[in-house]
């Protein structure tokens, strides 16, 4: 993990309140990043914002030495991040947390289940899985049509189902509705999104092996402050989301 200044290559809005940023990062750092890991971003200099913002890695382009992040504007900090322009630089802690251990897994067909701003890290995961010739099905859930992004990017890897809560685009309902309706067949699942969605996914897919990626308000982002914890399955101990996660085996933690 390193502290580094990254120059913004470009920044643009890709859906409602949703920003995509390409950052120029040294190749030797990019090489170390696994899908599911995150960067911890300083909002700005000065003392107004004392906490960084954890944002998942959405993609890495080794050739152009670019790292992609996608974030949603939720509050004042992310609004300030959204106001950055190309050529400005931002301070990153990189890379943070544990990613999806895909080298260790024997998978033929992966089901990727993303909800809202949990979709981006699954994109870099999809690319890495595709490189290993693993078949990919994606189910992406959003609140409404204006929130939808990355559909075509996921379609490039295989079947992609999009669902919205209000039915304004694609299927109507939650991701687990689609999984049931379409009788999707797979041998491993990977899911990232709001806790309520992850809970539903874990319950629905309880007989399948899988990985989930959690989000929580973070402090240090490196495991020192104990802010972003989640109880282990047996509730006997806490795992640190920033250090032990954000990726956990399904049913490893109690959500």
């Amino acid at each position, binding site marked *: 993990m390193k502290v580094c200044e990254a120059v913004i290559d470009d920044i643009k809005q890709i859906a409602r309140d949703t920003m995509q940023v390409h950052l120029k990062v040294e190749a030797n750092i990019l090489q170390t990043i696994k899908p599911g890991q995150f960067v911890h971003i300083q909002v700005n200099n000065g003392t107004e*914002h004392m906490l960084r913002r954890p944002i998942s890695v959405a993609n890495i382009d080794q050739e152009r030495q670019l790292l992609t992040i996608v974030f949603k504007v939720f509050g004042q900090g992310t609004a300030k991040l959204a106001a950055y322009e190309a050529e400005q630089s931002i301070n990153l802690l990189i890379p943070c947390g544990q990613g999806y251990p895909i080298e260790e897994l024997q998978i033929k067909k992966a089901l990727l289940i993303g909800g809202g701003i949990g979709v981006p890290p699954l994109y870099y995961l999809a690319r890495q899985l595709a490189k290993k010739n693993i078949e990919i099905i994606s189910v992406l859930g959003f609140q409404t049509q204006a929130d939808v992004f990355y559909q075509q990017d996921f379609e490039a890897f295989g079947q992609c189902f999009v669902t919205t809560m209000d039915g304004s685009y694609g299927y109507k309902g939650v991701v687990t509705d689609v999984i049931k309706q379409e009788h999707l067949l797979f041998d491993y699942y990977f899911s990232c999104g709001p806790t309520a969605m992850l809970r539903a996914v874990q319950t629905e897919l309880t007989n399948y092996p899988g990985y989930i990626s959690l989000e929580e308000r973070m402090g240090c982002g490196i495991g020192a402050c*104990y*802010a972003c914890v*989640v109880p282990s399955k047996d509730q006997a101990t806490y795992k640190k989301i920033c250090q032990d996660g954000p990726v956990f085996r399904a049913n490893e933690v109690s959500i």
Partner: protein
Amino acid sequence: MSDLTVQLPGLDLKNPIMPASGCFSFGREYSKFYCLSQLGAIMIKAATADKRLGNATPRVAETHAGMLNAIGLQNPGVEAIIDHELPFLQTFDVPVIANVAGSTIEEYEGVARALKRTEAISAIELNISCPNVKEGGVQFGTRPELAAEVTQRVKAASHVPVYVKLSPNVTDIVEIAQAVEQAGADGLTMINTLTGMKIDLKKRQPLLANQVGGLSGPAIKPIAIRMIYQVYQAVDIPIIGMGGITSTDDVIEFLLAGASAVAIGTANFKNPLICSEIIEQLPQALQKYHFASVKDAIGKGHGHG
């Protein structure tokens, strides 16, 4: 080169900069960013008698120029800290200050007594001011007679000097400071966090699961400075100051108010290299304000009598 050294009870500091308890865990994470031997000392995360899981999440929230936290003293218990955390810190050339917490006087005493079996600590920071646990902690820090009693008992139970960490959530901090000084405290550390709250507008409820949390960061610095200034005039034991430090100018302001050394907390989260950077920049800052040494600046801000 300015002299950065400071000698305090039990602590031979090569410089006056140390990470504050609770913001640095037991050092491992930050040791990946710089060598911990650079530090003046390390204040490790609070130890209780038994393992504690702490509060539910969310445990932190950002606020203007600061943050609220309600971690709730999550720690593996004093025995596990002695066995699994302190040996790592002993590989560095840096004094360790153990933060001792508890719910009862007996628990505080027990933790202090347990620490007797290790030579890895140079001093104890007696945490009578944690605002984030339901029982214990803060009531010892807000009532002078209780503060004095726990200080006396822990002092008697420990083998190293005891620094008492004062709560700012009191009407008269001088009264508490004098009470613990009379009870035998070797020094003071101040200030702990101020109790605060943030309400989630969409959910219409306090954002932190614990509802209230401790406010830290630059937002509380003027309060820390004022309290250190007042206490410095009223006691003869040294003060380790903390509360919103982010720069060398802040460090010098704390020294002027009367702190002999300082701890850096929240700023570690924004910049994990902050302690190392401030140590490097401190000689220049001392020169800028015409101090030959750190010791030269301590308490020099009381000019208007």
